[in-house]
């Protein structure tokens, strides 16, 4: 998903596998990147506890109370079917987290594996993987989604598989880069000298060195996943009603922009906050592993 190419490039740190850490990650984030930490924490709380802390049902309709503004009963108002907007936003966060997981798992597992093998072993495999990555990266995500949904029907998983496939090149590019940087370093040669097989070296010596950069890519691609979940559900290619999702909520909100614009505004602010948090978190982690600070 080179949809975020500039961000993913920031994932390549100047010096990989920098040991030892100067401060604990949590303290570093609290001191230097409080906004990133705060937004991601909020996202996690909402995604994990959302269904329990939601003040109302996410799907029960009450047409008598449709399209209300904010009130003590409904803090963020109600939607066209009278459902509580705050509760549905919390439900959307759960869906966004599912989207995040699907995309990062697909992209992370396949991409890292490909990049690790290509960069670590080199040769013809590297050539093939690099070429294919180059071609696939940047290919319009919506087209992949359209093909998959045409084949399998619209659903959250199908839409996110498309986004996950688009994320593979990002993970592959970064893990390949790290593997190439590391494969001739002294500690790797030492392991080779001790008779470790190449596959074992990849697993025990090189893979641990790419955790930091991969977390960075996961944050940025996770942010993209949330954005794409919203966009594809907005188009009707993702999650189907009555399940709440940022995208399907915005789709409903669009028809009532002139009557109750608040619906579109709060939903957009919520999804932007999630995406911004993940993007800032990616920047923060990159900063942490890069160590250049400010």
């Amino acid at each position: 998903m080179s949809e975020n190419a500039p961000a993913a490039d920031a994932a390549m740190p100047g010096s990989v596998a920098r040991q030892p850490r100067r401060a604990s990650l949590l303290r570093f984030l609290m001191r230097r990147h409080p906004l990133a930490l705060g937004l991601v924490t909020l996202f996690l709380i909402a995604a994990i506890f959302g269904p329990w802390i939601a003040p109302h049902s996410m799907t029960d309709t009450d047409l008598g109370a449709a399209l209300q503004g904010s009130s003590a009963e409904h803090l963020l108002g109600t939607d066209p079917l009278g459902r509580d907007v705050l509760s549905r936003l919390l439900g959307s966060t759960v869906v966004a987290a599912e989207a995040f997981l699907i995309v990062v798992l697909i992209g992370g597992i396949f991409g890292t594996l490909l990049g690790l093998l290509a960069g670590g072993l080199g040769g013809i495999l590297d050539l093939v993987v690099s070429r294919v990555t180059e071609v696939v990266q940047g290919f319009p995500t919506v087209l992949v989604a359209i093909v998959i949904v045409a084949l399998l029907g619209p659903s959250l998983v199908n839409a996110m598989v498309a986004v996950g496939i688009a994320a593979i090149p990002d993970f592959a590019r970064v893990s390949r880069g790290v593997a190439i940087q590391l494969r001739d370093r002294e500690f790797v040669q030492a392991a080779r000298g001790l008779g470790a097989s190449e596959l074992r070296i990849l697993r025990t010596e090189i893979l641990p060195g790419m955790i930091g950069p991969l977390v960075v890519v996961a944050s940025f691609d996770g942010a993209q996943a949330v954005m794409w979940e919203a966009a594809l559900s907005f188009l009707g290619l993702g999650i189907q009603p009555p399940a709440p999702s940022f995208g399907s909520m915005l789709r409903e909100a669009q028809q009532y922009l002139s009557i109750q614009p608040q619906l579109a505004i709060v939903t957009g602010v919520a999804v932007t906050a999630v995406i911004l948090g993940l993007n800032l978190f990616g920047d923060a982690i990159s900063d942490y592993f890069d160590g250049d600070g400010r």
Partner: protein
Amino acid sequence: MLVYVAGRMAGAALTLLCVSALAFFATALAPGNPAAVLLGTMATPERVEAVTRQLGLDRPLPTRFVIWLGETVQGNLGVSNLSHKPVTGLLMDALPVTLELAGLSLLLAVLVAVPTGLILAQKRDRWWSKPAMAVITLGISVPGFWVGLMLIVLFAVTWRILPSGGYVPVSRGLGLNLRSMILPTLSLAIYLAPALIRFVRVTAQSVLKEPFVDTARAKGLGNFRILFRHVAPNTWINTMTFVGLQLGVLISGAIVIEVIFSLPGIGRLGLNAVLNRDYPVVQGVVLVAAVGYVFVNLAIDLAYGLVDPRVRTR
């Protein structure tokens, strides 16, 4: 240079073949017999079988792919299951709308983003440069289609100065046409620009460290002249590559924006086709978008030589 051009062209051809195979097999393997879909629910099994044979659907898949490819190259993409019109005609009607939206948005995004990125690179120590970068990070995080909705709320609902959607063809007047394209173009450009600004800034920052910049400064040239005459040309190649990579974003974004503003472009055509299982149209849309994507990227690769003389001699 020749080897480079040949390699790029071979790569483009290979990509096109893969994409067309993908478009074909994804739809050919989809559940449901197209012949049955075409005839409706009242058709007898014998009739369905006859049409299946007539359409060549009983032949092996590889054979069908070769036949389909041959027809496609000749511009015959079949007939829509929904409107029973030729797919090529539907695409030809929709394409100008999408091209106009994508072209205008890209133009606007580049015109705004390149100077902004250059200036942010040079003035990185000013008090406003950090807040400016924060705004850009925020811009990267805002979903483009939500920006579109907010523009509708502002310009069409609150101030009532621009239409909230719909397309006016150029044939009914360029002014009216452009008026209907203002909000869609703005939405898509706002979606594209922040990432481009960020990229130009990073690229320009590394160029600013080059010795020739010091030379220019030593000659007594002003900041503005250094930035736009000496630094900017050295960022073109990277910027073009980035725009090429962003092409997928542009195509995806255009599809979403078309739906929001009810523009009868490729995106809305493809989306309606997917939701109605109109496979010939899905194939056509995927193919057209992929061809556009491949050719623009190829053009960008080949244009390097025009922008940077150093590439030609290499």
